[in-house]
C-alpha cells in the first residue's frame, strides 16, 4: 500500500507539472522591434485567406511589417560578455506583407519556425505615410495583444520605416536597444518629452488632447537622429515640428528636468547659448464671452553655457537682466509660433482641451462633447503666452 502511494506521488510529479504554457526561450521568435510601412510589394500567398479575392482593407491599404528578431544565444546579457560580433549579428530582420497588421504578422509567422512573441517588443516605427493615413488600425492590433507592454516606444520615421530595423549603430550589440536608449536618454536629459506607447495612447484617447511621436531619421545607415516631433490630430499625423521646437514644447508642457539648449542672438553678433535647468508652466483658464481663453506663463530657469564674442561681458547684473529680457521675447515668439502651427493643423498636443474639460465641464458638455469638436474650437482658441526666464549661473568664467 505504501509502495502504491509513493508510486502515485512519484507519477504525479511527472504528470502534474502544470506545464501547459511552457515556452522554451529558444523556441520563440522574440520580436524586439517592428517597423510598419505601406507595402509596395505584392502580398505572397497568405495562410489567412484565399489569394486573389477581395479582402477588406483598413484605411491604410496593404501593409509591410519589418521585424527585428533577437537570435537566441547571440543577444548579450546585461553587462558582461562583450566578445566580438557585429551589432547586426545578434538580430535578424524579416519582413512580410499583409492586409492588416495582424494579417502581416501571420504572414511573417509563415517565414519563421518559432512562435512570434511580442513580450519584449521595445519599439514600433511607423513610416510617415502610415502615420499620415491614420494609425487607428495599428493601435487596434497592439492594444489587443496582451504581450505588448506600454513601456515600448513608438516613433515615426521620415523616410522608410524598415530602414530603421536595418540600421546597426556601433554602440550596442542590439540595434533596437540602442534605439530605445536614444529616446530614454533624451527624456532623461530633458531633450525629449516622455511619451512612450502607453502615454501616447492616453493622449490619443483623451478628448481634449492629441498625441505626438518622436520623428526620427536614419543617416548613413547607422546614425539615428531625432528630427522633431510628429504631431497628430486624432489618429492622423498632421505635421511635424523642427528639432529646436521640442525644447519649447517641453517648456509649455512643463517637462522636467530641463536640459535643452537654445542659441539666440543678443544685440548684434552676440550669441548666447542658454541651457534650461528647470521649467514651470502655469495655465490659467478664463471664460470670456462664453469662449475659453488661456493664459500660459512659462518660467524657464537655466544657465549660460557659452557666448560667441568677448565683446560681451557677463560681469554685470544689468547685462544678465537684459539677456533675460531678450530671451523672454524669443521664448514668447517661439511659443507663439509653435502654438499657431499646431492650431492651424488642429492638433492640441498641449492638452489644453483637457484643462478646459476639467475646469469648465458645463461649457464642455454643452459646446464641445467630442474630440473632433474640440479640435475645431482649438483652431480659433485665444492663447497668450508669457515667457519668463531666469539665469541662475553663468559658469566658472568671471566675465
Amino acid at each position, binding site marked *: 500500500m505504501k509502495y502504491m502511494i509513493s508510486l502515485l506521488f512519484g507519477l504525479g510529479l511527472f504528470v502534474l507539472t502544470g506545464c501547459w504554457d511552457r515556452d522554451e526561450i529558444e523556441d520563440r521568435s522574440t520580436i524586439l522591434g517592428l517597423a510598419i510601412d505601406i507595402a509596395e510589394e505584392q502580398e505572397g500567398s497568405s495562410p489567412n485567406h484565399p489569394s486573389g479575392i477581395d479582402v477588406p482593407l483598413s484605411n491604410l491599404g496593404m501593409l509591410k511589417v519589418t521585424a527585428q528578431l533577437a537570435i537566441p544565444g547571440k543577444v548579450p546579457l546585461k553587462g558582461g560578455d562583450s566578445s566580438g560580433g557585429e551589432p547586426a549579428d545578434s538580430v535578424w530582420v524579416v519582413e512580410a506583407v499583409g492586409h492588416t497588421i495582424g494579417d502581416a504578422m501571420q504572414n511573417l509567422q509563415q517565414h519563421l519556425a518559432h512562435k512570434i512573441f511580442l513580450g519584449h517588443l521595445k519599439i514600433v516605427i511607423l513610416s510617415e505615410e502610415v502615420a499620415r493615413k491614420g494609425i487607428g488600425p495599428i493601435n487596434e492590433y497592439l492594444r489587443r495583444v496582451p504581450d505588448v507592454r506600454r513601456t515600448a516606444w513608438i516613433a515615426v520615421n521620415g523616410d522608410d520605416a524598415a530602414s530603421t530595423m536595418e540600421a546597426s549603430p556601433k554602440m550596442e550589440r542590439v540595434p533596437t536597444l540602442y534605439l530605445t536608449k536614444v529616446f530614454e536618454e533624451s527624456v532623461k536629459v530633458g531633450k525629449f518629452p516622455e511619451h512612450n506607447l502607453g502615454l501616447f495612447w*492616453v493622449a490619443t484617447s*483623451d478628448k481634449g488632447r492629441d498625441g505626438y511621436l518622436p520623428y526620427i531619421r536614419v543617416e548613413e545607415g547607422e546614425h539615428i537622429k531625432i528630427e522633431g516631433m510628429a504631431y497628430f490630430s486624432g489618429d492622423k499625423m498632421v505635421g511635424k515640428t523642427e528639432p529646436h521646437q521640442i525644447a519649447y514644447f517641453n517648456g509649455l508642457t512643463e517637462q522636467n528636468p530641463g536640459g535643452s539648449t537654445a542659441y539666440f542672438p543678443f544685440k548684434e553678433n552676440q550669441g548666447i547659448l542658454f541651457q534650461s535647468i528647470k521649467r514651470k508652466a502655469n495655465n490659467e483658464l478664463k471664460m470670456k464671452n462664453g469662449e475659453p481663453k488661456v493664459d500660459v506663463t512659462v518660467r524657464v530657469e537655466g544657465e549660460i553655457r557659452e557666448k560667441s564674442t568677448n565683446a560681451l561681458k557677463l560681469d554685470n547684473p544689468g547685462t544678465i537682466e537684459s539677456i533675460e529680457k531678450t530671451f523672454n521675447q524669443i521664448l514668447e515668439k517661439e511659443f507663439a509660433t509653435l502654438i499657431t502651427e499646431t492650431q492651424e493643423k488642429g492638433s492640441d498636443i498641449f492638452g489644453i482641451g483637457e484643462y478646459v474639460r476639467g475646469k469648465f465641464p458645463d461649457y464642455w458638455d454643452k459646446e464641445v462633447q467630442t474630440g473632433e469638436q474640440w479640435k475645431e474650437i482649438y483652431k480659433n482658441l485665444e492663447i497668450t503666452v508669457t515667457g519668463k526666464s531666469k539665469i541662475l549661473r553663468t559658469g566658472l568664467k568671471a566675465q
Partner: protein
Amino acid sequence: MRFQKQITAAQVMMIIANTTIGVSVLALPRIATEKVNTGGFFITFIGLVIAFIGCIIIAALGVRFPKKTFIEYSSALISKPISMAIGMLLIVYFILLEGFILREFGEVMNHSLLDKTPIFVTITSMIIVIAITSRNSITTFAHIQYYYFPFIVIPIFLMVLISFSKMEIVHLKPFLGNNANVSNYLRGVHSVIGLPFIQIGTFILTIIIPYTKSKKHTVIGSILGILVSGITILFAVGVTMAVFGAEEIKKSLWPMFVLARMIQFPAEMLERVDIVFIVVWIFSAFTTLLSGYVLIAYISGKVFGFNDHLPFTIILLPIVILVALYPDNIQQLYDYMEWVGKGGILLTFLYPLILLVLSLARKKRGDHH
C-alpha cells in the same frame, strides 16, 4: 459552549478587506467611468459608502443576535418559511456570483499568463483548492485570511505609489464627471454596487459574527475592514483614472491590470515586475472566492438543517464549476454578472435592512438571557 469565540477585530478587518478586494476590482475603473466619465472616482466613493452602510446594517444585526447565525435570527424575525425561502434565494444568488467570479479569475489568467491552458483546468484547480480549504473551521478560515492580508494590500499600495509619478490630476477633473446627470449617476452607482466584491464582502460578516470574541471586536473589525478595503480600492481606482483618463479606461477590459503591467521600478532596478502584480490578483481572487464558498456552504448547512457545512463543500463543487463554465465568453460573463449583481442588491442590502428594522421595531434581541 456552542461556538468557539476566538476571532479578533483584526481578523474581522482582514477577512472583510480580503473579501472585498477581488478580481472584479480590475474592471472597476472601467465600469465606474462608463456612465459618467471622470465622475467614476466619485461613483466608486458612493458605492463604497453604500457598502459601508450595508456592512454596518449587518454588523448591527449581528450584534443584536451574537450567538445566532443569519438564517437563525432571520427566522426568528420573519417567520421560518419566509426566512428559508429567502435563504434559498441567497444560496442560488451567491452560487451564481461565486461561479462568475471564478470565471472572471479564469479569464484574467487566460488573458495574461496561461493562454494555452484550458479555462476548465484553471477554474477547477482553483475551486478544488478552495473547497478543501473551506472544510476548516471558521477560526482557521480567519487565520488563512490573516496570512494573506499583507500580500494583497501591500502590493496594491506599492502599485499606487509607483504610479503616482505618472498621474495627471486633470484626468480626475471635473470631479462630478462630464455628462453627469442624475440618471447617469444612479445607473453608475447601481453598476458599481452590483459588482460581486461588495456583496460577498459585506455578507461574509454574517458568518463570522457568532465566532468573534465580543461585540466590540465585531463592530470595530467590520468598520475597519470596510475602511481599509474602501481606501485601498479608492486609491487604486483614483490612480488608475488619473494615469489613463476616462477615455483610455473605457478602451481596456481591465484597466487596473494594464496599470500593473505599466509599472517600472524607479531606476529600472528590476524589469518585468508586472508578474508580481498579476500574482497579487491570484491571492485576492483566492480570498474572495474562499469567503464566498464558505458563505454558501454555511448558509446551505443552516437552510437544509445540517449540523455543519462540510457536506456542502463537496456538493457545491460541481455546481460552481458549471456556473463558471456556463457563459460562452467574457462579454456574456459581464452581461450576466451585471444582471445578477444588480438584482442581488435587493437581497444583500434591502433584506438585512428590513430585518434590522423589524428587530428594532419588535425589540427582539438575542444577546441576553
